[in-house]
């Protein structure tokens, strides 16, 4: 057996005709040899009996359905709830590389937090000429209502989901930062759970960093930011309700943390504090993990037509009597045009060079850069600066000439609102397509919690574009997900493992 397991044997029938060229494949080198971190997995897949993987996949799909793991897609009329496709072949990260990613994310989140705080106070980075003023003045995400606010412990972005991608040469780039209400973390936990239930043998012999303690870490962080209280602070999760695309996740996190899930109508501001209506009367609330957008939080301060929020909430917040995670106003750092300045922010606030690189970004607000974008639009990815969820993105190489023209016009009519980036050849991971495996493009969203310390969930959410050749991984745009493994203690060599099995 040991002799048969030479790497050359691994690219066998299961991966017959599996294309590994032209892209970085997370499991194989271009010549078809498995990467060291994936040797054992590749061997396991190879030695499965025919049809076994497809059978396990069906079992996993059934498990997800039974667990009710769903999401909603806006703009689809029939049946708002959908099962989010899960692919059984995991994505693997080596421990060395993960540590580098973690360090880069820590650096980034510290700088972004300082930037947000600076934006709502002295704006030193503008005065020092490092960041252009029009960028903040013209940003829809800069909230006047938040000027001068001092969130507890000086932390604005408590929960961040940062999207990473790997290009052809293996470099990992930060694609965007999600600092408002990033979603998807529940899928990381559920994917691992489903994987363990339906395909337990793949974990055998591997040491993988656990993800299960995320809810505990989240609760710890939320309690840390609570205003001073006599008893243990009361934490709630505030959801817009069942029609929100991430309602499942809101329920899941509240349940996992053992705290109440509430809607705006369950909360009331009275006597200078936020209270929750309970069967035993009003109960004071100290920390709100809110999954409602800033604009809907408080009709008295933001949109007066919001029925989702809590009137008077911002006044209690301003008085330091309730904590909100994330703080309102963080969207200013979430803007895709502001993103281009993150390397400069890191240098300005931390005096360091950026360690996890940004994707080169052209700002359409700049005359020269806009000219370049208009001339090369068919090669570029064009994104609106203020949208999230993959809405409004045009991938040049895959768009029609009519779409190119439409985007040229959009850019010219509102240059501030568009940025462009080169089309990256996102890395691929083998994915079950019918009865065989094919490479599909993936990204990675690690989740970062900023409390007393910075905690980063090992791995994060690997999203996969299930449509052949597609580069858009968003759940709302035909994406699925995979389990993500961060290996502990270096990489197990297949020969060692097999030797240990006798």
């Amino acid at each position, binding site marked *: 057996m040991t002799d048969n397991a030479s790497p050359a044997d691994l690219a066998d029938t299961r991966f017959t005709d599996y294309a590994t060229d032209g892209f970085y494949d997370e499991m194989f080198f271009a010549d078809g040899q498995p990467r060291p971190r994936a040797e054992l997995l590749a061997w396991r897949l190879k030695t499965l009996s025919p049809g076994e993987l497809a059978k396990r996949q069906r079992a996993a799909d059934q498990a997800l359905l039974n667990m009710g793991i769903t999401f909603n897609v806006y703009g689809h009329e029939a049946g708002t709830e959908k099962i989010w496709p899960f692919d059984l072949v995991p994505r693997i990260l080596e421990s060395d590389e993960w540590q580098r990613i973690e360090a880069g994310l820590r650096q980034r989140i510290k700088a972004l937090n300082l930037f947000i705080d600076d934006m709502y106070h002295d704006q030193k980075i*503008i005065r020092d000429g490092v960041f252009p003023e029009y960028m903040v003045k013209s940003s829809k995400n800069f909230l*006047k209502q938040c000027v001068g606010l001092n969130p507890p412990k000086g932390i604005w972005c408590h929960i961040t989901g940062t999207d990473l991608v790997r290009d052809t040469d293996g470099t990992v780039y930060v694609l965007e930062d999600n600092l408002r209400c990033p979603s998807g973390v529940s899928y990381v936990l559920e994917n691992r759970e489903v994987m363990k239930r339906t395909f337990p043998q793949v974990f055998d012999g591997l040491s993988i960093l656990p993800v299960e303690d995320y809810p505990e870490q989240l609760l710890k962080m939320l309690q840390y930011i609570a205003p001073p209280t006599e008893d243990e602070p009361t934490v709630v999760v505030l959801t817009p309700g069942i029609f929100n695309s991430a309602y499942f996740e809101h329920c899941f996190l509240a349940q996992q943390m053992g705290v109440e899930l509430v809607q705006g109508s369950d909360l009331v501001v009275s*006597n*200078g504090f936020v209270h929750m209506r309970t069967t035993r009367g009003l109960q004071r609330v100290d920390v709100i993990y809110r999954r409602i957008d800033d604009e809907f939080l408080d*009709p*008295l301060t933001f949109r007066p037509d919001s029925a989702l929020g809590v009137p008077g909430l911002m006044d209690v917040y301003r*008085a330091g009597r309730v904590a909100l995670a994330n703080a309102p106003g963080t969207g200013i750092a979430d803007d895709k045009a502001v993103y281009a300045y993150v390397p400069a922010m890191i240098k300005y606030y931390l005096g360091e060079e950026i360690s996890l690189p940004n994707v080169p970004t052209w700002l359409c607000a700049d005359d020269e850069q806009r000219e370049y974008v208009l001339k090369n639009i068919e090669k570029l990815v064009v994104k609106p600066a203020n949208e999230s969820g993959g809405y409004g993105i045009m991938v040049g190489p895959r768009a029609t000439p009519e779409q190119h023209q439409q985007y040229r016009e959009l850019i010219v009519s509102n240059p501030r609102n568009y940025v462009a980036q080169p089309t990256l050849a996102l890395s691929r991971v083998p994915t079950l397509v019918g009865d065989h495996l094919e490479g599909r493009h993936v990204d990675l969203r690690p989740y970062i919690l900023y409390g007393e310390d910075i905690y980063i969930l090992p791995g994060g959410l690997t999203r996969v574009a299930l449509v052949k050749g597609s580069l858009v991984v968003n759940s709302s745009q035909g994406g699925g997900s995979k389990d993500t493994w961060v290996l502990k203690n270096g990489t197990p060599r297949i020969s060692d493992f097999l030797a240990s099995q006798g």
Partner: protein
Amino acid sequence: MRYRVRHTTTYAYSDPVVLCQNQARLSPQTMPGQTRLEFSLEINPVPAIRRPWTDAFGNEVWYFSVESPHHQLEVTGRSLVDRHVQPLPNPSETPPWETVRGGLASGRELADRFASQFRFESPFIVELPEARQYALVSFTPNRPVVEAAIDLTRRIFEEFDYSPATTSVSTPTREVFQTRRGVCQDFAHLQITCLRTLGLAARYVSGYLVTEPPPGKPKLIGADASHAWLAVYCPGWGWIDLDPTNNVIPQEKHVTVGWGRDYGDICPIAGVFTGGGRQAMTVAVDVTPVASGAA
């Protein structure tokens, strides 16, 4: 001139309101040409919580919540304000508007930078091609900025009808352009839209206008009203107030409460309440000149 201002807003409800949360922006600003000497806020029923804070534009805001059932809510702001005539630049000697626009865009001067936050779209001010066309008639190439802005104020005064009851708070500027009628708020929004589409900084000003009684008649209590106008930014001078509803440069007869990007930033009272059924609101404003010594 010294004025006593009383601004009372009364809400009457058919059913009891059990809880209301409010923000009042009734406290006059102190600024060049105006000094606030006193301010008090009276609220009935007595609120559970009342707290002042200063918003991003420097306006004093009072938050309050009334937490006992009530059929009526009465909010009165009382202030004592000194208003002086401010020297104004000679309009024809102010810089060309294109230069002002360039300076605001470059943000090299600190004062310009603070003003430049009033150059962009805001909830009530959105880009409008017809506003640009309309503005360019006054803003001919290289025309001094204040001269052009005064001309624009005059044209709005002459070409639009003052017509209460035809518009509401939320009348879009596009519609005002079509119907050529509106109230002070609409004209302020309209001129701000014109100025911002040119890349200039313009802010919305909320306040009061002192009205004179007809000759020989005593002034009626409560006959005054909230008023709104705008200000355009002129480097080296600061903000120049313009009142398109009356075609004047506000001076001694205008008392400023505060300013923002548009009405939404400085509406006198905003509130959210639970219960109440049908509601009716009445507003009474008195601005009374007092002798400086007698205050």
